Structure formats: C-alpha cells, structure tokens
C-alpha cells in the first residue's frame, strides 16, 4: 500500500540554446492502493514525468517520494511500462517477460515456470516460443505489460499500455488490470488518451495542460466498485465524460 | 639424407633473405645430411625486409646467410655484434642487361658512362645488393644515380623483367633466373656487364652472433664443417648438385635451372674454400660507403672470424 508523491517537479531542456519547459511544477499524490490516471495532450510531458518518477531522468526541480522516502533519481523502486513495447527482438516472448525476474537473480527455469501460466492466461498461448517480430502490435503490448507485472512492484507506472490494443482485448485487459489491482493492492499511475478508459479505471484523474505541462484539474471519479460494462452507461459516467470532453475542448482553442 | 641417431640432435635456424639458387651449398649441406652428420638439425627460414638479420639479433635464428655489409650495418651500436664465419657466394652475383637494340661500345668506364647516361634502369629493391651495386657502378663511372639516370626500384624480381619487357625501362640489373627469363621473354639479350668481373667479393656469407661463438664454438665449428662439405660437393659434383637444386626448386623449369647453373660455374660463383679474404670484404663495404648507406668504417678482425674455417682445413 505504497504512497507516491510528486512534489513540485519541473523539467527544462535546452533547445537551440534556449531553455524550454516541458513539465511545470507538477504536484501529485497517489495514495496507497489507488488508481490514478493522467490525461493530457500529446507532448505535454506525461512520459517525461514518468521518466522522472521511475528515476530514469532527473527533474530540474522538485522531488519524488515513495512512502515519504526521497527516491528522486533512483531507479528500480517502481514498475514502469514505457510507451513503446520495447521487447527484445532476439528473445522469445517467454524469455522477454522473465527479464525482470532474471535481473533479480531468479533462475531462468523457475522464472519461466512462473511466467508461462500468465502468458497462457492472457492470450499469448502458443506464442511463448515466438520472437516479437512474429506478433501483431497488440500481442507485443500484452507481453510488455506481463513483463512489468511480473516485476512485482507496489507502484506501477503504465504509459498508455492499451493504446495499441483492439477494443475487445482492451476491455478485457482493463478488467484484468482492475482485478490485479484490487487483488494485489497496487498503486497505479496510468497515462491514457481514452476518456472512457480513464473514467472506467480510475479513482482520480489528473488533467494536464498542453506544453509546458501543468496540472489543470484533478477529478474524483467516485464511481462504485467493482465496475463492469454497465458502468459505461451510468449517468455519473456520462456526466464525467461530458465534463472531461468540455475541459479538453477548452484546451484545444488556443492551440488550434 | 642420411640418418644418424647416435648424437643428440640440436635444432638450428638459419635465416635467408630470399630463397635463392645462389645458396645451393647450404641446401646441399641440409639435403645430403652433412648437418645431420654433425648432430645438427638445420632449418632455413626466409625473412624479408631486413628481418633476416634482425631475427639473428633477436635470437630467433641461430645464423644468417647474406652479405657481410648488411651484418656490419646491423652491428652499429649493438652490444652483441654478428660475425661472419664462412663464405658461400664469393662473386658479386649481379648483371646488367640492356633492352633490345641497345648495346654499349665497351665496358670501360667512359663507354659505360656514355651508355648509361639518361637511361631508365629497372633495378632491384632499393637498398638491396643489386641496387647498391648498380648505384656504385654509376658513381664509379662518374654519373649521379639520382640525376643522370632514372632508377625504378621494384621490390619484386619479376617486375624487373616486366618493366623492360614492356619497354617502360631501358636497362635492368639482376641475376639468374631473371637473366634467362628475360632472354626467353625477349626483353634483353646476354648481359652487357657482369659484376662478377670484380673478382673475389663476399656476396653471401654465413654469420652468427659473437656471443654464440664464445658460448658454443662447437656448434659453429659443426656448421662450418658441414658448409665446407656442401661447397665442395657443389663445386666438384655438378650432377649431384643439380639433383639437389631440382629438388629444392621443383616447380622451376629445367631450362631455367640449367641456365642458372651454367652461369654460376662460368663465373665461379661459389667459394672454393669458405675463406673470406680481407679484399673480398672490402668490396661490398666500399659499395655501401660510396653509396652513402653506411659510411662508418669497419674492422675486418671484428667482422670476420676465419678460425673455424682454418680449423676445419687442418683436419
């Protein structure tokens, strides 16, 4: 039940000699076991923020804390699924998903035994021994997600994991993710472009402004759990959807 | 060769700069088992670019067959100089050939000077004996090798033939089998000048390190003994010598080998007694001096050690 807090994080790059701000004073808290989504236009610094949280990039200012401990710039504390699928083309799918376990020193054989049922359960049955090239985009993304989940961290960052999945699998994966989340009590930070998805999955939604990314609003979803497909037709759902659509339309005017 | 398992066999490496018909006495001594009889197992390695001498200096080879001049040059500044112990080729084994329709009036210095001036010459590799001798001759007849003639100095013996054959050069220097090949090819006729006319000339001798002579004179003696036997056979038994030659150069044509042998005997190429006379050493060292390759002096007594040859003769 880890709590992740982002305190006043900013990120500047230098572009052609000029400093450029891509993320501005982000303040967020993901309380233990909560499902928090981030919605924002492309290029507003969502992946940058995730890189900072995962310790892969240092913020220009601000801190990241996990259960109060300062983890700014340190990697390995949170699970992170990057935006690209990033499967290693020379490994089979099975060997791709166990790489996190391998790093933690789990013997290959044991790691494979642990991963195999998961692959088979989540639609990669028969593809365990194939190389990523042989899979369609959706399948690759699934493998990437399974790899992150096998890493078994309390806080998981998911950068548009379902962006490339088809509608069916998407729904299936959404439910499955909710299942995992409630079973394992993980804190999830989730980037998505899909308003339905954000509302359906989250406890809270952060809405970002266009570049330089700033938090524009924080919305409490407040829909009862467990949720299912009927949730999508509920009034509260449709109300939130309209609200978000409006917020995003507002955003659009200055940029268009 | 003959085999003898009596004495413990010692392995010895002798470095040669090229694999050459002129070194026949060495090959004969190996093939006929003269070294074996002395309890030596001799192997010959070919080492280019000056490496034949350095391999002795570095201790990779026991001895070297080559000119005493290159030995003296290598000795400059060395704490363990190389010393020559037995003579093998006692004539300057280099000839000058002229392309078709070219002929000097005579071989006097004036005639040669007049003939050579302005010609382009395919000489051997720069710094090699044929090349140095040619330069030396040019200086001797009063020409400047860098101005009065054009010297092409390919590293490869065959290139000398092709340069003249293609008319790119007027003259060439070289030895057998180049001479015969060039004649066959129609590049040139018989040589118009032969350096063997210089008389005794220590062209190829066998040398080893001073420390070897001090520490292991027995082996030096054995090598000299075997070499003298080889020289004797080559000088006296032409038929046997030819057999060894054929064996050593299996892919060369009979005509080419025969021509080489004939010229060698005609010019008394091989030393009769293995003795390196002071006059024979003086000539190559004069060549390197005049051509500016090595201008410091030398001491015959330091460069040459004839005690082993003398001891062998006494027996």
């Amino acid at each position, binding site marked *: 039940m880890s709590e992740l807090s982002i305190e006043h994080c900013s990120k500047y790059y230098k572009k052609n000699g000029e400093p450029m701000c891509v993320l501005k004073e982000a303040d967020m808290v993901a309380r233990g076991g909560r499902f928090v989504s981030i919605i924002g236009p492309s290029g507003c610094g969502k992946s940058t923020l995730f890189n900072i949280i995962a*310790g*892969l990039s240092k913020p220009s200012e601000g801190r990241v804390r996990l259960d109060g401990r300062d983890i700014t710039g340190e990697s390995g504390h949170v699970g*992170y699924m990057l935006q690209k699928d990033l499967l290693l083309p020379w490994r089979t799918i099975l060997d791709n998903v166990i*790489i996190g376990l391998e790093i933690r020193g789990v013997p290959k054989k044991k790691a494979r035994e642990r991963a195999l049922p998961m692959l088979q359960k989540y639609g990669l049955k028969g593809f365990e021994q194939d190389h990523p090239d042989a899979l369609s985009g959706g399948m690759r993304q699934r493998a990437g997600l399974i790899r992150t989940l096998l890493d078994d961290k309390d806080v998981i960052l998911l950068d548009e994991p379902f962006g490339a999945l088809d509608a069916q699998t998407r729904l299936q994966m959404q439910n499955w993710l909710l299942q995992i989340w409630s079973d394992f009590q993980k804190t999830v930070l989730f980037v998505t472009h899909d308003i339905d998805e954000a509302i359906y999955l989250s406890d809270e939604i952060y809405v970002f402004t266009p570049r330089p990314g700033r938090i524009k609003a924080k919305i409490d979803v407040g829909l009862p759990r467990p949720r299912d497909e009927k949730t999508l037709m509920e009034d509260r759902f449709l109300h939130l959807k309209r609200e978000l659509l409006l917020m995003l339309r507002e955003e659009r005017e200055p940029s268009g | 060769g003959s085999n003898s398992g009596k004495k413990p066999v010692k392995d010895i490496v002798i470095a040669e700069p090229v694999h050459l018909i002129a070194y026949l006495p060495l090959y004969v001594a190996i093939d006929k088992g003269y070294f074996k009889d002395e309890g030596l197992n001799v192997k010959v390695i070919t080492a280019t670019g000056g490496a034949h001498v350095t391999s002795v200096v570095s201790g990779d080879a026991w001895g070297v067959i080559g000119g005493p001049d290159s030995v003296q040059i290598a000795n400059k500044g060395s704490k363990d100089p190389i010393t020559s112990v037995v003579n093998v080729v006692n004539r300057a084994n280099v000839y000058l050939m002229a392309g078709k329709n070219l002929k000097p009036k005579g071989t006097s210095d004036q005639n040669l000077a007049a003939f050579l001036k302005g010609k382009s010459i395919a000489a051997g590799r720069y710094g090699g004996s044929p090349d140095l001798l040619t330069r030396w001759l040019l200086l001797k007849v009063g020409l400047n090798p860098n101005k009065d003639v054009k010297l092409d100095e390919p590293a490869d013996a065959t290139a000398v033939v092709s340069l003249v054959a293609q008319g790119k050069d007027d003259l060439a220097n070289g030895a057998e089998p180049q001479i015969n090949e060039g004649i066959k090819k129609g590049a040139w006729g018989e040589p118009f000048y032969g350096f063997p006319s210089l008389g005794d000339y220590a062209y190829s001798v066998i040398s080893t390190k001073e420390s070897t002579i001090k520490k292991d004179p027995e082996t030096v003696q054995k090598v000299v003994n075997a070499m003298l036997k080889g020289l004797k056979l080559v000088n006296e038994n032409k038929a046997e010598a030819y057999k060894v030659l054929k064996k050593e*150069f*299996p*892919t060369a044509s009979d005509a*080419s080998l025969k021509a080489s042998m004939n010229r060698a005997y005609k010019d008394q190429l091989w030393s009769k007694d293995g003795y390196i006379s002071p006059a024979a050493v003086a000539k190559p060292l004069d060549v390197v001096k005049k051509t500016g390759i090595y201008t410091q002096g030398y001491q015959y007594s330091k460069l040459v050690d004839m005690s082993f040859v003398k001891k062998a003769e006494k027996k």
Partner: protein
Amino acid sequence: MAEKSVRDASGPVIEDRDREQAKIRRRAFVGQMIVGLLIIFLWEFLTWIGWLDSYYWSSPSTIVRTGWVAITEGTLLQDLAYTSGATISGFILGTVVGSALGLSFWWSDLYSRITEPYLIAFNAVPKLALAPVLVIMFGIGFDSKVILAFLMTVIVASIAAYSGVKNVDRDLEKMLLSLGAKRHHVFFKVVIPSSVPWMVSSLKINISLALAGTIVGEFISSRQGIGRMILYAGQILNIDLVWVGVVVLSALSIVMYLGTVWLERLLMRGRTPKS
C-alpha cells in the same frame, strides 16, 4: 506479371518464405558456378589465343599442372594447412578480443574516445613495413603469423562492435533500468545481443583481413605457408607458381568466406529477419 501468377494459380497461393529463400539460394549457387566456369574458360581462351600474355597471366591449365607438381613434389598441402591454421586462429582471437574491446567502450564514453584513435593509428601502421621490429616483438614462428592475423582483425572487430554499441536503442536500456537493472545487466542483456548483427557484419571482412595478416607474416619470415611459397615463386620468377598460390589463396578465402556465412547464420539464428 505480378497479376498473372495470381490468376493462373488454380488453388490458393500459400506464401512460403522459407521455400522462396531456398530457391534463391539454389539459383545463386548455380549462378556462382556459371560465373566461375566462365572466368576460367575466358582466361584459358584469351591466353591461348595470345590476347593475354601467358608469361604473366599463366593459364588455368598451366596453373593446374604447376599446382599438381607443387602438391606432389613440393609442400603445397602442408603450406595450405599452415596458412589456414594461422588464419583461423588469428581470426578467432581477433574477433573475440576485438568484439570484447568494442563492447567495453559502452562502459565509458571518455575511455572509448581516448582509446579509439590509438587503436586506429596502431592498426594503420602497415605491418610489412615493421618487418625488422616485428621479428623482435613476435619472433619468426607460427605464433607471429597468428599475432599478425589477430592484429589485422582486432580493430575491425572492435570498431564493428562499437558501432553496434552506439546504435543500441536507449529506450531498451531505460526499460531494463526501470526493472532495477544494474549497468552490467544492461550490458549483458541488451548491449551485447543488440550489437550482434554489427559484430556479425564484420566477420566477412575480417576473415580476409586475417588471411592477409597471415600472408604478411609469412612474407616477413617463414619456413612454410602459401605466402612464403608466393614470395619464393616471385623471387625465382616462377609466375605460374605465383598464380598457383593466388588461386589457392582465393579458394581458401572462398571456403573461409562460406565458413563465416555459416557462422553468421548460426549467430543470427533466432533473430527473424525483418519481413
């Protein structure tokens, strides 16, 4: 043309990449044979009618005859074994050490930038020029040939591996780091495997460089080997024998080339080619 093949087919056309590849391989083999035979035929013919001077160019039939003499009366086969032995040893050594070196550049940008020009300079020095010095350093034995073959290959292998290292997808690195990987994990699990195609791409160049290194070593000093045979043949103006050496070397390099192709396939196994 593309349309026809579809229309004419009676049943459904099943796309089968493996079989197509096999077909191309077979055709290429036939083509190689034809080209080879054509070269031999033209060579023989042109020297026979005198368009090419047979003194310099020899001729296939003369080369075969001379080669036969070299095998039966000379030591061609031993020479061949000597040369190929030294080449393969040097190639393996050079490729392994060079690849390791190139990969090691991943660890530090500073270290790699400092080291690289020295390697290049060292590589560029023509070995034959160093004959007297090399004898001192490496001697005149079999080892010295292996070392020269090694020296010829090690730089190319290291540059290839380094190119691979520089082209590693940084995001893969990020992904691994996010899984808590240390740098050595990234190195062994991402950097090395993703550099393999680059390293493999240098094999074909390197095998011929290794051969060249061995030959140079034999030129400098040797009792055996094809290089020594060629040198000797040149000195006694036996141009036919020079050609025997050249032909044997070419054959050897083709055989070794095929060996590297096989090795390449072995190393690239499991990596489905881009489709």
